[in-house]
């Protein structure tokens, strides 16, 4: 599983961080960092929730 961010769309709303803090973090400038781009399978549900709740539709999962 690989987390893909569409950086043209991401505006740092931080919904992914609320949903899956293990995987996403906004820095002090509200810029997104993906903490683990290839997370283990047990985090799939959380990653999918982050994808679903991103209001910009800027996240996707490959694999």
């Amino acid at each position, binding site marked *: 599983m690989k987390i893909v961010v*569409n950086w*043209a*769309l991401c*505006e*740092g*709303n*931080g919904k992914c961080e609320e949903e899956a803090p293990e995987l996403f973090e*906004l820095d*002090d*400038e*509200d810029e997104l960092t993906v903490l683990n781009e290839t997370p283990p399978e047990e985090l799939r549900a959380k990653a999918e929730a982050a994808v*679903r*709740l991103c*209001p*910009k*539709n800027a996240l996707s999962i490959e694999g």
Partner: protein
Amino acid sequence: MNAHSPGTFSYDPYAREVLENPLPFYRELQANHPGYYVEKYDMFIFTRFQDILDVLGVTEDNTFVGSESTLPMPADILHKNTGAPPLAPTDPMGPGIMLASPEYEELRLAHIKPLRPKAVKAIEDMTRELALDRLRELLPQGKFEIMGDYCGLVSAAVTCHLLGIPKSDAASVLGAINDLASYSDDKEGVDTPGMFKFLKSFIIPAIDRRRKAGADGEVPMVDGLINHRLKSNGRALNDEEIADQLVCSFVAATETPPKPTCQGLLELWRNPDQLAEIRKDLDTNIPIVTEEILRICITNQFGIRTAHKDVTVAGVDIKAGQRVLAGIYAGLRDPREFDEPEKFIWNREIKRILTFGYGQHHCVGNNLARMEVRVMLRAFLEHVQDFEFDMDEAVHAASYFHWGWVKLPVVIKQYSI
């Protein structure tokens, strides 16, 4: 033909009886006509929550663009396009909401830093002080119009702060926006192009002031655009082009947050048991009730896009040149997404929300709006122990833009400040 006669149902988002009360039309569209086609505007209407997400979620390849405005006057979409219409110009740069990718995203990212979560948190104390200043003046009067005199002036002052406009201009900014954003029978619409032109008269001097001050980042919404160089050719934007990127936020930030805040207080007044529950712990409960207020007390009706590619979405085949209407107000009342959707339930579970749209045009001000609603609600409920609305003097406006209360006189029965 109307919403109540099965078999003869017809819907026109701009028809007089829809402007007066769209709710029965939304219920019928949602129940029996997903993807309803309006021949007159060559446009498909989406009112179910998931369909709206699916349509607005198409963000690839400029499939849907706000190229004919996201809120056109009816006269502007009476013609049928033969294929995709022209995209908005990029030299000179067109208004932000009409642009296509990549310029649309590029110019948003160039100026929205102050609207991001931590940046909004940093102006929360200032917003609270503005709210308390208003309440100190208003509460001793015993009765006032809460939409304009309280919330409108707070939101307008925050907007002025963000755009480097003197806060002393807040009242004139608010008055101009409320006049211009209301539905006009003469023009048979809300004249958004006219409104944008007039409002630029506030923004252009602010840009000029920032240029003279060196655009050093102190007013990031303006300075970010002054300092931006277009990725395509490296050129800077002129004042007109910068103002065209800011005017939509200017209107939205000024007139939008007061509406859910005041209509939310109206719901709480009508549901005293729920208000009593909320009052038990304002710190915990205000953020919770804010979400329900943002679900059911907003006034924006819909957004429109034009297809620039053939696409099949939400079960409908759409050809390039045809239009789609995302009925967010209806979607927020979809029983497929929310139990008893018409009921105000302060602590209902809300997993997803359409209030701020979705996808490419998702509201840049969503963090700011949430904060303002919370702060204005909290300040009012903390300092007003008992109040009632004078509904005989309240004003409800017919419109396809903001449909809801525009004037709400409130009587203060007990306060402490």
